[in-house]
């Protein structure tokens, strides 16, 4: 059975591009167009891997990532961050949230800064699932 990959991104062009790359490599993409929808689909679809944008309406990828990695049911789902936001910023924001009293969260399994090449994405996925 094809592995299910949830794409959480608000950019329709990125969704089309990523979906195409995944389908060409026999993965089954599931799409969420904002952070809130993403959280709902994580709960209902139980994906094998999540490709997560950071700067989105409703709920940012930073917050979603924190929710995932602090929830026993989801913390083992591999997450690839695919974003225009720099990795350094992502890590610093997580540090800031930890300092404000949150739990410590691990670094993402992979961090790809946009634009992402198809091979780069597929290689990262293959290392994780």
């Amino acid at each position, binding site marked *: 059975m094809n592995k299910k990959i949830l794409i959480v991104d608000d950019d329709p062009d990125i969704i089309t591009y990523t979906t195409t790359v995944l389908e060409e490599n026999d993965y089954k993409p599931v799409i969420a167009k904002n952070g809130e929808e993403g959280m709902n689909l994580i709960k209902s679809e139980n994906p094998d891997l999540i490709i997560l944008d*950071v*700067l989105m*309406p409703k709920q940012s990828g930073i917050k979603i990532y924190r929710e995932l990695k602090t929830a026993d049911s989801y913390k083992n789902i591999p997450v690839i961050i695919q974003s225009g*936001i720099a990795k350094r910023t992502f890590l610093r*924001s997580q540090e800031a949230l930890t300092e404000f009293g949150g739990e410590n969260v691990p670094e993402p399994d992979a961090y790809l800064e946009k634009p992402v090449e198809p091979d780069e994405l597929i290689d990262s996925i293959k290392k994780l699932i």
Partner: protein
Amino acid sequence: MPIKKILYVTEFEELWFDALQALMDLKQAGLNHVIFLHVIDRKEVAMQRGVGYLKSEEVKLKEIANVRFIDWAETLFEEGMEVGAHIVVGNQVPKIVSIAEDEDVDLIVMGHQKKGRIQELYHGSEIMEVIREVSKPVMVYKFLQESGNVNDKPFKRPMLAMDWSPSSMNAVSFLLSIKDIVEKVQVVHVIHHKRLETLKPVEVQKERKENRKKLDELCDRLQSEGIDAEPHLYVGNIIEQLEKAARERKASIIIGGSTGEEPLKKRILGSVPRELSEKSGFPTLFVS
């Protein structure tokens, strides 16, 4: 009425990141989430004779906005803030209204720059449409003042324009929600000069006394809630006097109710918020 989430509407003309940073005092009042919104005017990418829809222009304008928002977002993310962004094509007012409601923000911040007469009329009406259509407080932030200085502490010395309407009492609640960043509030009521024309001298004195008593009571309430407050009673043309009071009292912003004494906000917007939002040299914030 905690201010946890704001919608920051920018055309990249009047409001940049420095103006947003000046609003970060609101973190002391609970702010932890900023949503950026840039609306690309449909006219900029609309169909033109022989050309059609300018898709490449839309992509270019979106990318420019995206690069700017990413840079702003990175700074806020690193401070532990939650950030979101919308870059959309369409008409400004309906987009602002729908996104403000959808994101359920606590405050909408818009810019306003004095422009040509025609643009002024058009842009002013956009601001008023937003105030009319949304149930959220709307701040028109004039970051760059006419003097050339910047107003980087807009909530430090607010002036509360009080007309005793339900919406202006809601403005009091708004002030209380940001009390930790308010140094002192000037509470101003203006008696319209035309109202006095029909009154006898003794009735004028009675009117003054009643309003002054209400102002004192309100200031006492604000003081008891932890905000230093000072009452002032003015007489004359309401718009002119509020502007004068704001200048005399060195106000950093004018805060008031958006509906005046009119209950039907959708149909009748108070003339005071309309005039002040469009013409005042001070930032304004109106609460419905």
